[in-house]
């Protein structure tokens, strides 16, 4: 019955983070396509279920962004039931969301992004990982990251019962409030997160932006992509991750759209291409222009760099100072894809400061955690800024509250076409006359990682890793070379 096997890491790779590069007859890069796993049948799975089950179901879609799915879904329920959360409930939800931001951004930066810079982009891939970073800069940083993660996940657990896949989510409120005796832990955690955020930014500026070679790399042509940008802003056009209006700026930084997320269908188009399961998004009013960059494009990006470009500033004082410094160094708008990392660390500081503010708010431990004055509407659109970018949940139900329609737009969907463009630009520098130079995979991975694309979807996979695979094909589609970590 049982036998021993050795598993090849590509066993469950098919469809995960796959890139197809097509060459023209001269052996130069003509196109690059980014493909992810297709998970089928989600709408069918949901139709007929009670709509209030959605906040519990949707975190299972994604092993990487469960909290944003949970909160976006809960916000959609608010609209379906025609009810606003109580002030205390809103604070609790925002606390959960900020805790997720801090945890997620640091895991990304220290585990995924920092090895490229701290170990160097040309370092041996076997050492260019978190273990290499620990060897180089010391164990203490990793311990701090893990401790921040543990504490922020404790907060998520406190509110939503499970940090990986939150189970809470009620229209007009939260299933559980915060007790006064829990406030101390939350305040301590928030203070620790703010201190760590400042440390992380200093490390980033010293090690990366203080290094001329890295700065040159960051602002180099292959990592420059001129697109539109989209993100949520508050009433003062500052960054807001939980709520607000969607603002769009053009490649020159000028506002071209400002709308409530419920009107997303008027502004966001979804385009189907035969080479991908992802419905590629574009600015509907401009029309589909293809996968191109520059002033003529209708593509936009989301995520930390987009939020930096669309907002006039940050919502908290320390993050605002860091934002101003970044503006003084790189200006606005910034089209350097690797600058996603800097923007991400500033966001982690804003989220930590926001946690601090909420933790000290007397209303946090209020007993009024649910508004049940329902005015059923049958339609709800919830939108948040997931760590990776704008996330939209759109549900409709019949008059019994059973789901009749579901549409989700996730961050990696917005960024899919720009990722393909970034890969194309990178690959261009490494492929001449059909020959693929050494180092291409390293550089393509760096661009790819900056977006922090969410490929996890719902699958977790043995053996647990998820490498990138690049197929280089000639015009006829024949695979000339496959690049993959093995």
């Amino acid at each position, binding site marked *: *019955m*049982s*036998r*021993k*096997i*050795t*598993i090849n*890491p590509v*066993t*469950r790779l098919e*469809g995960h*983070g796959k890139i197809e590069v097509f060459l023209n007859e001269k052996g130069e890069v003509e196109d690059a396509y980014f493909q992810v796993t297709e*998970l*089928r*049948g*989600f709408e069918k*799975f949901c139709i007929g279920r009670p709509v209030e089950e959605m906040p519990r*179901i949707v975190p*299972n*879609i994604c*092993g*990487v962004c469960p909290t944003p799915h949970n909160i976006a879904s809960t916000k959609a329920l608010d609209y379906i039931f025609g009810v606003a959360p109580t002030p205390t409930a809103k604070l609790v939800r925002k606390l959960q969301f900020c805790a997720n931001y801090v945890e997620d951004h640091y*895991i*990304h930066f220290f*585990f*995924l992004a920092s090895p490229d810079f701290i170990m160097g982009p040309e370092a041996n*891939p*076997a050492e*260019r*990982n*978190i*273990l290499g970073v*620990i060897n180089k800069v010391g*164990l203490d940083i*990793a*311990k701090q990251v*893990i401790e921040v*993660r*543990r504490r922020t*996940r404790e907060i998520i657990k406190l509110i939503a019962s499970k940090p*990986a*896949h939150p189970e809470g989510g009620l229209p007009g409120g939260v299933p559980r409030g915060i007790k006064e005796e829990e406030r101390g832990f939350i305040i301590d955690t928030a203070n620790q997160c703010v201190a760590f955020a400042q440390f992380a930014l200093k490390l980033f500026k010293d090690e990366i932006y203080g290094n001329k070679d890295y700065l040159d790399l960051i602002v180099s042509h292959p990592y420059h992509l001129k697109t539109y940008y989209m993100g949520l802003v508050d009433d003062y056009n500052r960054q807001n991750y939980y709520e607000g209006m969607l603002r769009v700026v053009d490649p020159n930084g000028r506002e071209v759209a400002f709308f409530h997320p419920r009107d997303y269908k008027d502004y966001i188009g979804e385009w189907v291409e035969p080479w991908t399961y992802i419905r590629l998004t574009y600015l509907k009013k401009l029309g589909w222009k293809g996968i191109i960059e520059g002033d003529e494009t209708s593509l936009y990006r989301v995520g930390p760099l987009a939020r930096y470009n669309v907002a006039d500033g940050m919502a908290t004082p320390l993050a605002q100072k860091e934002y101003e410094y970044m503006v003084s160094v790189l200006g606005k708008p910034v089209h350097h894809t690797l600058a996603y990392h800097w923007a991400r660390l500033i966001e982690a500081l804003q989220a930590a400061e926001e946690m601090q503010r909420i933790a000290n708010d007397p209303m946090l431990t209020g007993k009024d955690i649910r508004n049940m004055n329902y005015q059923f509407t049958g339609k709800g659109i919830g939108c948040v800024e997931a760590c990776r970018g704008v996330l939209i949940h759109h549900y409709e139900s019949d008059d019994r509250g059973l789901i009749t329609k579901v549409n989700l737009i996730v961050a990696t969907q917005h960024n899919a076409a720009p990722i393909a463009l970034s890969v194309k630009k990178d690959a261009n520098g490494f492929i001449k006359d059909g020959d693929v130079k050494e180092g291409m995979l390293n550089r393509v*991975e760096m661009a790819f*990682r900056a977006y922090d*694309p*969410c*490929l*996890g979807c*719902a*699958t*977790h*996979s*043995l*053996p*647990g*890793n*998820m*490498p*990138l695979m690049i197929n280089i094909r000639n015009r006829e589609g024949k695979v000339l070379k496959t690049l993959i*970590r093995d």
Partner: protein
Amino acid sequence: MKKKREIKRLVIGLGNTILGDDGAGIYAVRELKERYHSERGLSFEEASTGGIGLLDLIDNHDEVVLIDAIITGKGQPGQIYRMEIDELRPAKGLIDPHHLDIRTACTLGERLGYNMPKKFWIYAIEIEEDKVFSDHVSDAVRKGILNLINQLSTDLSLPLPHQDNGQKGCDEGHSSPK
């Protein structure tokens, strides 16, 4: 005489129950928990992602068993594999930190001072499909889950169910995932 410390054993079921057979590990651990919840020193957990998320669970356990679904494409659905942690190759070049491979996660845990298990096995159940949303498990995988439970019970020297009334193992009619 000094009392010998009880060995702490943990069984983790990994998977996603809204992706049909991908939830095999979760269903297996639920069934095991139902049978052996009163067994001393043995605990059970469900998990949805691998990597560093597992570190928090396995910390301070002497022996850990991980149950997951797998697609090798070479076996029959429901086929069971048993592996040692050393048989998994560490990843090079991650693109998603949340999916840190298990071996790298264990190495990281040791470096960070986690009390890592001395024994770590993995049981995997071959599945065919993990990309279609469903809360049902195929017949072949359901049978595989039951076989795995029996094998694991034997490997961990746990009493097989219904031993006291003469029944061995569990038949196909036993309660199992839908």
